[in-house]
């Protein structure tokens, strides 16, 4: 995957995604995309376009997720499920190295890379941004996995009820980062454009017709309408400033009454990257392994210092999470850590909605200033 400077307009119309998936599989990629499983849309290996959740949409609300039948056959007529691509690019458990005791010390060996090359099909604009955001946080092993991945992104034509990508600064059209970009149109048929040279090489092999001006227009309209149907939004104020000025806000205590500190929001968030290292030794004590595992700032031990954790109260941990996402991420990485995918809202068992929390903080500050 290579970033391109400028979005290339759709050039081709595809009647089916099966040839694309077949071509990627033939190239040795493990093709991952959305599929329907146990009443939810999950990410899994795809063998053909029939694995895509054709005709399924979702009904979302704070703390609630349900799939529903659509009245068309769209494959991408649903918004993001609980998983994001970090499952593959920044896996939940990674072996760092193995140390083996020797007569006078130990040796350390790094396991060989798994060699899997992923092709992601159906990456949403919000998730495309999230992939790039994690890339600006994480180091060389993430970069290597991303570099070898092939990305087929799809413009959003159907925002979920929890989405707010537009006021989070992105979507619903794809930004940079994809190899091939799709817009799903009625049928479903797919407007396609290659954004990189490897994307072009793959696209060139697929059965296609040239996209007509009318079809392009239809695609562009569907994307523009998606922007207008966005139901949630972030207040249009300087959020970094709001959050750094709200460290002592009463709202943190209020939200802490509802937050269970379960960490679901951090697990489903496509940009949350925090990890811990875990050391294991074999029974004989001669082999020690070091693992990296996902961790969450909601975990009490996350901020542990000799003597006890720094952030003991739930309010301090929720403050840490929200302030990092929307505020201090700017200080650390020069951008926001939220792409507005809405997952944290949907998968919070308490139905806590970060857009509502931010608005309440903005309100509180305004009241304080009056």
């Amino acid at each position, binding site marked *: 995957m290579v970033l391109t400077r400028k979005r290339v307009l759709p050039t081709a119309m595809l009647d089916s995604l099966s040839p694309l998936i077949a071509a990627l599989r033939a190239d040795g990629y493990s093709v991952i995309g959305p599929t329907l499983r146990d009443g939810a849309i999950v990410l899994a290996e795809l063998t053909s376009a029939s694995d895509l959740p054709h005709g399924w949409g979702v009904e979302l609300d704070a703390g609630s997720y349900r799939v529903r039948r659509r009245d068309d056959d769209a494959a991408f007529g649903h918004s993001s499920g609980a998983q994001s691509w970090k499952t593959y690019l920044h896996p939940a458990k990674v072996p760092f190295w193995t140390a083996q005791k020797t007569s006078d010390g*130990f040796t350390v060996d790094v396991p060989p890379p798994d060699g899997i090359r992923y092709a992601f099909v159906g990456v949403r604009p919000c998730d495309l941004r999230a992939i790039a955001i994690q890339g600006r946080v994480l180091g060389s092993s993430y970069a290597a996995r991303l570099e070898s991945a092939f990305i087929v992104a799809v413009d959003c034509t159907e925002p979920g009820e929890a989405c707010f990508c537009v006021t989070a600064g992105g979507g619903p059209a794809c930004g940079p980062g994809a190899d091939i970009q799709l817009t799903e149109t009625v049928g479903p048929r797919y407007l396609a454009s290659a954004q990189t040279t490897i994307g072009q090489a793959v696209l060139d092999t697929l059965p296609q017709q040239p996209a007509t001006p009318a079809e392009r227009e239809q695609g562009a309209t569907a994307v523009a309408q998606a922007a207008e149907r966005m139901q949630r939004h972030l207040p249009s104020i300087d959020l970094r400033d709001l959050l*750094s000025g709200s460290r002592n806000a009463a709202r943190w205590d209020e939200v802490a009454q509802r937050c269970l500190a379960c960490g679901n929001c951090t697990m489903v968030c496509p940009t949350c990257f925090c990890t811990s*290292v875990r*050391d294991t030794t074999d029974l004989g004590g001669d082999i020690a392994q070091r693992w990296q595992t996902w961790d969450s700032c909601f975990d009490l031990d996350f901020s542990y210092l000799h003597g006890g954790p720094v952030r003991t109260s739930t309010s*301090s941990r929720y403050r840490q999470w929200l302030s990092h996402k929307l505020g201090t991420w700017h200080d*650390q990485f020069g951008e926001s850590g939220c792409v507005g995918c809405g997952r944290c809202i949907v998968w919070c068992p308490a139905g806590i909605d970060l857009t509502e929390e931010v608005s309440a903080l903005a309100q509180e500050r305004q009241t304080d200033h009056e």
Partner: protein
Amino acid sequence: MMPSLFRVVHRRVETHDTVTLALAPASEPLTPPAPGQFHMLYAFGIGEIPVSVSATEDAGIQLHTIRAVGAVSRALCQAMPGTMLGVRGPFGKGWRVPAQGGKNLLIVAGGIGLAPLRPVIREAIRRREQYGNVAVAIGARSPGEQLYTAEYREWRDAGLKVLTTVDQAPGGWGGHVGLVTQLLPGLVTSPAATVAMLCGPEAMMRVTARALADQGMAAPSIQVSLERNMQCGIGECGHCQLGPLLVCRSGPVTGYEVAEPLFAVKEL
């Protein structure tokens, strides 16, 4: 995330719970650390923790002074000469020691906080003529817990003012008893020409920095070394967050102008 292999070449017991290990590279040496930087030290099969460099010597040898407070620090403290350890680093931003200009240096340490400041003290002695007054104020819990006492004479002989205090003392201790802040009056004669470097428990740094600011020192001339849980040292694990900072990357040493508003917030 691969550690380099080092071997303990010398182990010195400093106090009942603190030792200094001299580590020599078993293969390639690491980049020489700057004063105030830290390494991640790995004890086989136990774990890895951040530890400041307390001195450097020739041949890539690094000294680390470690206080046993838990599993990893205890294992490190028990490492005898010959033991192999893993080392990553050096990490973080260290002390901004003024290179010239005849500045006065004020070094204030609490407990194990003296360890990351010892390289500054040694540097100040090496380039003594480039500084005005150099004062070191050291607080420890009890006389038996003072670090590097054997070196104080050498520091004084080099023209440094070395003041010590303890929180509590048994009979026979003729020195000062009380907080390290009580040593400060008189140490800052010209606030504008002084650079202060503080390391110790957060509460100690908070009151000391406040006291120095009250004596007219500008916040950026007061440097503090911050402490947070650290698992990677390279800005990737997220554990060392403190407001806008990833302490492992933009710290551990920061100016008081950055630290003051962060010190003021509970559980940040």
